[in-house]
């Protein structure tokens, strides 16, 4: 059976030894987020994940959501689990204490998000979307809207959605048609059809708060004519209780490949009452602020799935007796050796291990940057942190989710034919992971965001910031003999990033297809380089750990995994560099009719 135990020790290692989480409590507003409190929070969340959410993962997948006459029922046990989750305060982790949240830093939110998704992705999406709605409202909503909605979203009595997609437009939201007509009382009347709306309808909360993109009657065409509205399922009364049913209804739910316990809804708006959030025609900007946060959240889903997949693969590889080790029996008394002895099985496990551990460090570092960008007293530090976040967001979204899928597939492969069988719970990871590469902007779109928006941003400042961060590290550790085997490959990978970027600068102006054709490869190249950087930091922390001569096996395993990453994963940067420089001509050579 699939297994999941929250990787508390590894999370603690990254927090305390790699990114030094004690810095958080020194930021204004986060005084309570001391390492011991964070530790207690992670441990308690782990209990909830392992004992409540994870057991519902497979049953939720097996049963799926039910639709009948506009009403959606979540699978058995979800309602109770959600109640426990909300009552435990886990819906308001990073929310503002003014609105009833716990006011914890993003770093803590990230650590927990990984665990929530790893134990039950379909479940974790319900509070996840509420949090997206919370963020959008808290940044762009009027004080009145905030007072009315934020406390309910923070304590989980109401949930939220993001309504962007329409049947004829997903990526290209400039084409969207949902209309909003101003009403005499200052509200708007919305009509149109949204599809693929996650958590659009369900039975977990007494109200659902939809954030809807729509067009005002006089709006210009394209993305510059889109506004953001809040459209609740039930219109709130003055005392905060729910009143009249609003004209936004679920017309159907999708039958889909994965995350079956999360309702994906067609939402029909039929003169539904809504209120403008932020400025008219500035809806895309407002949504983008929230989308960047949500993209990092989806990246964490990739990591979460990879972790469960990895744990399930390891457990099976230790147990399954098949074949003999090529170097002589390792389980002489038994009928065969456990498959963990085989180099090819090791290959699968090491790819997963080197991804999850490196990615966790990268993600929690970005969490820390978010907190610095938000609260650091020094403006230059805030700006630097924000540049790095901008740069790393599409990288984390696309690379983590591609790897989530790859790790899920490797787990199935490790399980052999038994991985293909539903009862064992491993094939579910492949199906669940698949959506993360698609929603919140497909991974192809992430790559375009990186190449088209983030690299040229502010005259290339954000890109320079990332390279500067890495070269600063290289300069600091280059002389250290013990670091040589890690710093050198990092330096070479960085050289390949620079070389590839130079090629694009020279060619993409003449032919924009060069940028489009290189985008996904460049994203992967930069992701692997960022991972190599984090593995270097992990090695530095591990050397410190070894000096303290405490828990040597743990640190030695880290260093060994870093070696694997440098030797057997990072060389992909060589071929990526070649691919990019081969240019887009071979991609575009065929006329469309030739396919």
């Amino acid at each position: 059976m699939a297994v999941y135990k929250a990787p508390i020790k590894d999370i603690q290692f990254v927090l305390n030894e790699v990114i030094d989480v004690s810095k958080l409590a020194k930021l204004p507003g986060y005084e309570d987020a001391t390492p011991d409190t964070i530790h207690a929070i992670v441990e308690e969340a782990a209990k909830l994940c392992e004992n409540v959410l994870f057991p519902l993962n497979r049953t939720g997948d097996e049963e799926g959501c039910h639709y009948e006459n506009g009403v959606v029922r979540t699978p058995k046990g979800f309602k109770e689990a959600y109640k426990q989750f909300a009552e435990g305060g886990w819906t308001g982790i990073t929310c503002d204490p003014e609105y009833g949240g716990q006011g914890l830093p993003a770093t803590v939110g990230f650590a927990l998000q990984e665990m929530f998704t790893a134990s039950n992705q379909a479940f974790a999406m319900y509070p996840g979307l509420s949090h997206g709605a919370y963020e959008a409202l808290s940044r762009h909503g009027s004080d009145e809207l905030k007072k009315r909605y934020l406390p309910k979203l923070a304590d989980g009595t109401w949930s939220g959605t993001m309504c962007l997609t329409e049947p004829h437009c997903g990526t290209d939201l400039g084409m969207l048609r949902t209309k909003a007509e101003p009403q005499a009382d200052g509200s708007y009347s919305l009509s149109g059809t949204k599809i693929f709306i996650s958590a659009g309808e369900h039975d977990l909360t007494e109200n659902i708060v939809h954030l809807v993109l729509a067009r005002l009657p006089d709006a210009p065409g394209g993305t510059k004519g889109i506004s953001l509205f809040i459209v609740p399922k039930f219109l709130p009364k003055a005392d905060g209780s729910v009143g009249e049913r609003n004209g936004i209804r679920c017309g159907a739910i999708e039958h889909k490949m994965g995350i079956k316990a999360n309702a994906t809804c067609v939402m029909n708006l039929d003169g539904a009452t809504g209120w403008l959030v932020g400025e008219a025609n500035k809806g895309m900007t407002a949504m983008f602020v929230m989308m960047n946060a949500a993209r990092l959240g989806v990246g964490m889903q990739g990591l979460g799935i990879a972790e469960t997949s990895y744990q399930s693969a390891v457990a099976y590889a230790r147990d399954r007796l098949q074949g003999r080790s090529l170097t002589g029996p390792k389980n002489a008394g038994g009928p065969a050796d456990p498959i963990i002895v085989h180099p090819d099985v090791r290959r699968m496990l090491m790819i997963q291990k080197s991804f999850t551990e490196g990615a966790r460090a990268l993600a929690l570092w970005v969490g820390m940057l978010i907190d610095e960008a938000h609260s650091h007293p020094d403006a230059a530090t805030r700006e630097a942190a924000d540049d790095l976040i901008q740069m790393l967001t599409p990288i984390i979204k696309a690379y983590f989710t591609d790897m989530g899928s790859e790790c899920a597939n490797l787990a199935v492969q490790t399980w052999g034919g038994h991985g293909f069988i539903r009862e064992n719970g491993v094939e579910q990871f492949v199906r669940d992971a698949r959506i993360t590469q698609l929603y919140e902007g497909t991974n192809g779109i992430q790559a375009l965001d990186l190449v088209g928006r983030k690299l040229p941003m502010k005259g290339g400042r954000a890109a320079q910031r990332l390279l500067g961060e890495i070269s600063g590290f290289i300069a600091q550790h280059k002389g250290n003999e013990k670091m040589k085997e890690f710093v050198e490959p990092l330096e070479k990978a960085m050289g390949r990033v620079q070389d590839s970027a130079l090629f694009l600068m020279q060619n993409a102006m003449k032919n924009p297809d060069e940028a489009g054709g290189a985008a996904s490869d460049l994203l992967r190249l930069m992701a692997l380089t960022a991972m190599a950087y984090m593995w270097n930091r992990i090695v530095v922390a591990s050397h410190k750990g070894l000096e303290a001569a405490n828990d040597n096996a743990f640190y030695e395993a880290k260093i060994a995994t870093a070696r694997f990453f440098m030797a057997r994963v990072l060389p992909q940067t060589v071929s990526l560099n070649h691919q990019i420089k081969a240019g887009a001509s071979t991609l575009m050579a065929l006329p469309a009719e030739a396919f």
Partner: protein
Amino acid sequence: MKVLVAVKRVIDYNVKIRVKADNTGVETANVKMSMNPFDEIAVEEAIRMKEKGAATEVIAFSAGPAQCQETIRTALAMGADRGVLVQTDAELQPLAVAKLLKAVVDKEQPGLVIVGKQAIDDDSNQTGQMLAALLGWSVGTFANKLNVADGSVEVKREVDGGLENIKIKMPAVITTDLRLNEPRYASLPNIMKAKKKPIETLAPDALGVDVAPRLKTLKVEEPPKRKAGIKVKTVAELVEKLRNEAGVI
């Protein structure tokens, strides 16, 4: 009425225990530690009493190294009001813990002391009973259900043959069994609040207790490995093996 609960820091129940190479004990370095599960039940019961109005204050007690603070914090996050840590790096045997508890009981004057029936590390099942003897109080062991009323406690006890109902006078010591309740998970706001609740740290000397071990551990060994099973052909053969080979019937 104050309720005092004892919480012990033990190796987490999920950890596979390993014996130290020199056979002096089990490996505790770099091993995940948690609150003894029976003590979680004790804390839960005390908090429920407070929620029902039967108790006014819940005090969590622990004895051991400084890290026992974490275990006390867990109890505070569940809902206990304050903590008392008797800090010592010495090996603590049940009698020493009972004496330390008695000293704290003398100070705090609780109406009830609730402890786990045993700790999952040494499985002694002695502290509660010894404490009751030292205090001269009534004791209700292996509690499956508690009801506090009019200066006495009705205790449903788990005994070999089933359940036994007794009524004992307060003040009293209770030891919890597994089915008394299902301990809650601490909520996030309560974890944050626990940080601000007070923990008093005392030394055994200051309480006038000599914690020196009275028992000596000679050697700790792994239990023998389970042998592979065999298939028997008939019931008669099974009975024969149970009687003559295993010697269990």
